[in-house]
């Protein structure tokens, strides 16, 4: 019950966000960023509300939400593992890291989140941490010069912590 009531206040959150950005359609992207921060993804009904509140066609809001890779329309896992696949990381073996982590979590390029929504594995084009190549970001912490073994060990740590 608590959880459901809190979703009522969350629904109010999107209104707060809209007000914070003056209901200005030009601020659609910051609004969507704030919505995603709040809800961890962009739920369809919230996007419809955003569209109608900003007086934008819902198709346009959907178009923006699907254009930028930062936005997601499906819930992401609790732990987000982002592998850098920039040039420097690539030439230093980021593919092997990705394979190792995906293998450990049973994920593929198409399926990026574990069914229990504990993990999401993504690649990013460049973190700008090329000096540390290959780099992996786990829950916003950057790990540099990662080997496949080390990457799997980091994942294991999280799995054990969750167990």
């Amino acid at each position, binding site marked *: *019950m608590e959880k*459901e*009531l809190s*979703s*009522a*206040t969350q*629904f*109010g959150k999107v*209104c707060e966000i809209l007000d914070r950005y003056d209901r200005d359609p030009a601020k659609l992207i910051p609004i969507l960023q704030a919505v995603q921060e709040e809800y961890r993804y962009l739920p*369809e*009904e919230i*996007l*419809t*509300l955003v*569209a*109608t*509140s900003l*007086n*934008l*066609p*819902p*198709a*346009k*809001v*959907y*178009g923006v939400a*699907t*254009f*930028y*890779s930062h936005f997601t329309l499906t819930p992401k896992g609790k732990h987000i593992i982002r592998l850098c696949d920039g040039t420097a990381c690539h030439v230093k073996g980021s593919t092997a890291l990705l394979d190792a982590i995906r293998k450990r979590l049973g994920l593929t390029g198409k399926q990026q989140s574990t069914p229990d929504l504990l993990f999401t594995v993504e690649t990013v084009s460049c973190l700008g941490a090329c000096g540390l190549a290959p780099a992996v970001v786990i829950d916003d912490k950057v790990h540099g010069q990662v080997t496949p073994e080390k990457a799997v060990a980091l994942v294991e740590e999280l799995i054990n912590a969750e167990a």
Partner: protein
Amino acid sequence: MDEKKYLTIDGRQIAIEGERNVLEVARKAGIEIPTFCYHSDLSVYGACRLCLVDIAGRGGVASCSTAPEPGMVVKTSTKQIRAMRKIAVELLLAAHDQSCTTCYKSTSCKLLDLANKLGVTKVRFKPGFERMPLDNSNPSLQRDNNKCILCGDCVRMCQEVQGIGVLDFAGRGSHSRVVPAFGKDLKNVECIYCGQCARICPTGAIIPKNEVSKAWELLDNPEYKTVATIAPAVRVGFGEAFGMPVGTDVTGKITAALKQLGFVAVFDTTFAADLTVVEEAEEFLRRVTAGGTLPQFTSCCPAWVKYAEQFYPELLPNLSSCRSPQAMFGAMAKEMLPKLFDVPREKVKIVSIMPCTAKKFEAQRPEFSRDGDRETEVVLTTQELIQMIKGAGIDFNAIEPEAMDLPLGFKTGAGVIFGVTGGVSEAALRYAYKKLTGKNLANVEFKEVRGDDGYRRAEITIGDNKVRVVVVHSLSNAHKICEEVKAGKADVDLIEVMACPGGCVGGAGQPVYVGMETRKQRAAGLYRVDRNMQLHSSEDNPYVKEAYQNILGTPNSHKAHELLHTHYQSRKRIQDEDVLVSGSDEAQEKLPVTICVGTSCFKRGSQQLLQELTDFLKENNLQDQVAIKATFCHERCDRGPTANVDGTIMEKCSFEALRAEVVKRLRSAVAK
């Protein structure tokens, strides 16, 4: 400085005469530069890259987005550019569902045409596109993303010309696609079915829904008396498909062809247009004299009606309650023909030939059915009838014209000009003139309301009265006038709205056309028909008079209302699930409360209502007895905020009222 300025295209000196871009200059000179995404009435998009030309000193630039400058030396077809164009077309074909033989657009597909012209004999690239399901669930249009080449013409048409934005790009890169919001079907979004997207689509990605087989089914069934009726604009668009000059009137030939196809009688929707004039003008005069809601909007365009229902529910009282001519025809025909043919009502089947895709939607509105029997059984577009005629092997050019059947085939010129923007207003003005002055018009042509501007104003003096008229076409212009009306700044009495650019002559069911010239010539064709007719005012139609005498009584009578008028409803723009705010869904014993948080209600404080109710329930420990949902529309936007307590809709709902209702319901539930 008044001297003409020139540029050189492919070695020819061509004058620059105010053209927006090099492509237009070349077109003027008869040099066709290929393009998918350039249309003079849409913004420049620059995505198809086929219009690339070589300009000395600048290299390859897109001619659609390059302003002509004096002295420019342009080459439209260098080796490099030809190679690029050919590869571009190959790339498009590789990402395109090449089921050309079965494609509706195969004879008018720009992609196929260009592939032929560029000599693409083989696609060297691997086919690669993610197959997407067909969007086929609405009555008017069919969308097939597998044939979409992402030129964005439909997106810009819907956004810029119609001002709606049903379609937009989603995804990125090679995953881009043009879809309605959230990838839903058109049926579940705010599409008004005008079909302008289909008209402008260069391939078969959006097409009018084809119902030719349904028409054949009716004709094949000997139990049915299947009749046809054709809309005004059809007669001037039809001939194009048979190589006749644009705007040629082929009413007689169509009639003959329809009879040959097996229709027992062929009528004219224009007859119903004459009825519409009488009813609508009477309604207008009554509003004026009785102090009714003004200004009055016309209601014969079904796309406009759906638009108003979705976007301007507060203006629905301003809409004329008159049905469209198609719907009036259906009602009258179903009333008269059973007696005439001596068959039960449901055995008379009406096939309506329309320049329009939205008419397909209109015909299946529940208001226009009786006991499940549709008044208009099938709506065929002009294009579909052309297909039927060609399919039946009829040599249209050789066929001898025939006259339409009576009584529903008789019309006046006033009804005919319904097919062009300004026509409805003009027809109504002709009627009003006679009604108010008692005199016949010396010159029936009200040139003030004619023209092609999307938003036209005119002030007509009729006797001692002045009628202020606004004529708009394209819904972006309708949006403009609606906002003015809402703001009380419109300064107008009568507003004519046509959703399609140019009115029905520019409808999406007409043969595919590009550029404004075609629809202007079709309009000229309709005015010619009017001029050649004997009667120019609807009230002079003897069969209209007869209908009033025998069936309808007087205009706007009870019977007239039953058969010729209708009502409107607010419509939800996006069909979606309600959001559960509080109280889990599974429990059955809960009182369902839904609060609208759509734009209009939102502005009227529905968010606070939601919060207050949640707080109230929490404070009183009632939260597990009530399931609160947030929805996006109760379709009563003009009376928001609205709440729905287990089926009871509360308008202009205050928290106190809502609380009282909820408590009352909970108590009665406990009592039970």
